[in-house]
């Protein structure tokens, strides 16, 4: 590789005294002393998160309290670090949500593996998994950070539903147009 030799200019007399630089630095210091501090006192103070922030993935319920996930396993398929593991299950025929037929028996996300890419949220056909605002996780063991279904629902809570897809389906089944 070719070497480029740079010519270093000699310091002027003023520079040799270092005084202009010190004065310049003090100016900045004094200015900052009278400004509002921008440092955030984390963890006492929490930052304001922008729209579309990708925190940890969580499972959500619809306004009727129905778990939205139908265990289609698309998130498990798309997940680049393979953090998601689902055991599909059948909703019993006598349950109020029996028309949905399928729900996860077990759903776990390994938060140590998760890279917060948001692909699970993007791929979900039921809008059941969302990366919400929680971002700071800690635990005493690895097992503790493999979140199970109940924990994921607790973190996810309920989100408004605009489609009511399954409610419509149930209503249609109750009043089918007969021939």
């Amino acid at each position: 590789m070719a070497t480029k030799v740079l010519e270093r200019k000699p310091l002027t007399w003023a520079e040799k005294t270092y005084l202009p630089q010190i004065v310049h630095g003090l100016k900045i210091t004094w200015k900052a002393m009278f400004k509002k501090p921008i440092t955030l006192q984390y963890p006492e103070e929490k930052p304001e998160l922008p729209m579309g922030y990708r925190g940890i993935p969580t499972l959500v319920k619809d306004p009727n309290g129905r778990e939205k996930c139908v265990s289609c396993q698309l998130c498990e398929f798309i997940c680049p670090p393979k953090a998601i593991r689902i055991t599909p299950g059948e909703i019993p025929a006598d349950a109020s949500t029996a028309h949905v037929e399928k729900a996860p028996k077990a759903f776990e996300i390994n938060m140590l593996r998760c890279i917060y890419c948001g692909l699970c949220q993007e791929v979900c056909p039921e809008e059941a998994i969302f990366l919400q605002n929680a971002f700071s996780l800690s635990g005493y063991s690895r097992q503790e950070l493999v979140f199970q279904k109940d924990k994921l629902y607790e973190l996810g809570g309920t989100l408004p539903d605009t489609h009511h897809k399954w409610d419509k389906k149930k209503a249609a089944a109750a009043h089918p147009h007969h021939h």
Partner: protein
Amino acid sequence: MSDLKNAPLVTITIDGQELQVPAGMNVIAAAALIGKEIPHYCYHPRLSIVGNCRMCMVELGMVMKDRATGQVILDEAGKPKIGWAPKPAIGCGTQAVNGLHVKTDTQLVKDCQKGVMEFLLVNHPLDCPICDQAGECTLQEFATDYGQGYSRFVEEKNVKPKRTQLGPRVMLDDERCILCARCIRFCKEIAGEDVLGFVDRGSYSTLTCYPGKALTNNYSLNTVDICPVGALTSTDFRFKMRVWFLKKTDSICTESSVGVNTTVWSREGQIYRITPRENGEVNDSWMADSGRALYEKVEAPERLKCPKINGNTVPLPEAIDRACELFDAAQKVAYVASGHMSVEEQFLFKELTHVQPGDIYGVMHVQEADGFLISADSTPNMRGGLAVGLWEDLPQKQLSALGDKIDNGAVTLLVVYNEDLFETGLTEAQLRKVEIIYLGTHRNRTSEYADLVLPTLMAFEKSGSFINQQWRLQTFAQAVPGPTGLLPDICLMEHLRSHLVGEAYVAPTLTGIWGRLSHENALFKGVLFNKIPKTGQLLEAEAFAHHAFLEGKGLHYEPKVTIIPEAVQAS
């Protein structure tokens, strides 16, 4: 359906490409020969043609002939003029004849496909996220390949029953059904139990069983396989796992000596389902329901998972040492081999018996045959035992000769491979009289009496080959790992043999064993394990034709009638 083997060849032209096919060949099958896909739902090569899905629309034309003279009419360029039909026609209802011209990718054909797809999806519930067929659904595939990609349907969709139990193993989702009638035709034509049919009209048509009947046939799950959509699902596999996670492994069904070709679907060492694998020489596209349930035995509670000496779990080396002690102490050994072993295992078992010679017994397992894909012999490889010389004659159901020898003290050590000796007529007193080394996959009454239990692997957990009733050598591959720490059967037997003779143990390989088998055994001459075709290799077994095999007539199997010479009959 029809036999095309003896049909004369005719020349047809598909999308300008000329090809020679047997006369009468279905146009869909002919197009597939040159890699052209004609999308279809109701057409199935092994079922009759109904032409009710209308998906396989193509344009048809024939070489024009002068009606008066029969002369081919030529155009200006001197080529035969093609008379194209003004309207499209269904490919599945068209058979190859000389001079047939087919267009599969014109704008008209594409418009037809788009239209048919739109109609099929009108009342489709689009519940792919919960549908088991997703990933292997032709409705999904053709909707992306040939559909228009969006829906114009704003009206309310039909609501139909989602969970109709057609039979103990088959569930129907009426909303997903596209009324292709494959299942109906299968029941009528293949299973021979015509229980399904459509009721109601138009978009209210639903599939149902005839009143008072159910889809209980032992071949009912084939309807699930051939269902092009998710309307019929298996109650066993339902909602268990999405198919795109499953690894497919070619295997052979161990249910009977038919040797049905199967695909084992597994994920991370767990088997989820077994489906038939196409083999036109053995099982066509079909398989019995009972054979599909065999995977459940892998996780059965009575599975043997570790070596045991007198009921106490021991490490494998200790168990092998114990086996050597038993062999050294015993002067008179007898062996009970099995038709459940693969050819390679039978060969190595035979090698093992050379160390300390003794009588080798086999056990014949007889079951009720159904004349289709379940034969009377419930072992997959009884003929392998004949081939490698484990038994000279067909094994017996009862081992009374062995019982007598035990009573006489002529046998002091029994090496049993996966057989329950109680079923062969031996008594508890007899088993108590001898030492028993039991090699097997599952606990049974004999293993309870065994001094030493060496667990072996099931066919899903190892590779090898079986010889079926047609003397067809077929290979199966390992689908899932066996229980932790267990050796494949061939390694276990070689381990035992090498210890007994004081040689260093070298793990045997299938290709190594086949190198010896093809060299030493005239029946296997020229057979290379890695070159055995997927559809199996038929062996020349004239030398064994005189045995009175149990198997009766089945699919692709006609028992050879043994003619007993009159002289023998008279005596």
